[in-house]
């Protein structure tokens, strides 16, 4: 059985859903950031698969994937800096106990 576009898209949807579950269910802030990385990876697989199967000569999907990686790197750096600052102030990174801004 040949591998087609649908296989890659289902794989990417699976990775995204696993990341979505992790981002909602986890309490550790670093675990939430790791789940967001999983979601971004799922999106990247979908973009590269579209690029490969629908416009094989234009590579626009791969260029978009590169920009997603840039934004992911920036997001991780700032997110982990925020997590470390919160840990320094409050001795916890449990997302249910970081509620200073909660109404």
């Amino acid at each position: 059985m040949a591998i087609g576009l649908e296989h890659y898209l289902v794989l990417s949807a699976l990775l995204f859903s696993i990341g979505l579950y992790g981002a909602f269910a986890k309490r550790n802030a670093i675990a939430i950031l790791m789940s967001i990385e999983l979601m971004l990876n799922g999106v990247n697989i979908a973009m590269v698969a579209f690029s490969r199967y629908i416009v094989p000569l234009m590579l626009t999907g791969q260029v978009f994937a590169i920009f997603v990686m840039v934004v992911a790197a920036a997001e991780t750096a700032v997110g982990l800096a925020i997590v470390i600052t919160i840990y320094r102030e409050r001795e916890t990174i449990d997302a249910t106990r970081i509620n200073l801004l909660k109404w």
Partner: protein
Amino acid sequence: MGLVIAFWVLAVVGIAAALAVVLLRDIFRAALSLVLCFLAVAGIYVTLSADFLAAVQVLIYVGAISVLIILAIMLTREVKRGSPSGRLRVPALVVAILFLGTVVFALVNTSWRISSVSPLVPTTAAIGGSLFGEGGFILPVEIAAVLLLAAVVGAIVLVREK
């Protein structure tokens, strides 16, 4: 045939590693399986004949982001407490499954216009051309550079000792 086997092996490894990331209680092991998942995704890029992107995936995700995450885990000393799931576990599962079902239903019932042209290999020169060439993505590249600079400065300001 080799491509088919490679796809299934990489897909199974990637999904299993992703499940381990969200299900393991030990956050350090979760980070290690995140590295495995990133490597499997890099292999998936190779099966999609995106060689440059596979190298970038290994360099940025496996090389840089994983190291950052593991360093942050070490610095926050929550390794012993682990990362248990919160009260929202069942609603989160329901939402994730609903989302997965909707997306899979939509993409199976769409008739994609698959191109029969064989893909461009190697891709590095073509990606460089479309990023920096005439009529390409040069403005987003500049904006990405500004974004990275802002992120680096912001991270330094955030963790600086008062």
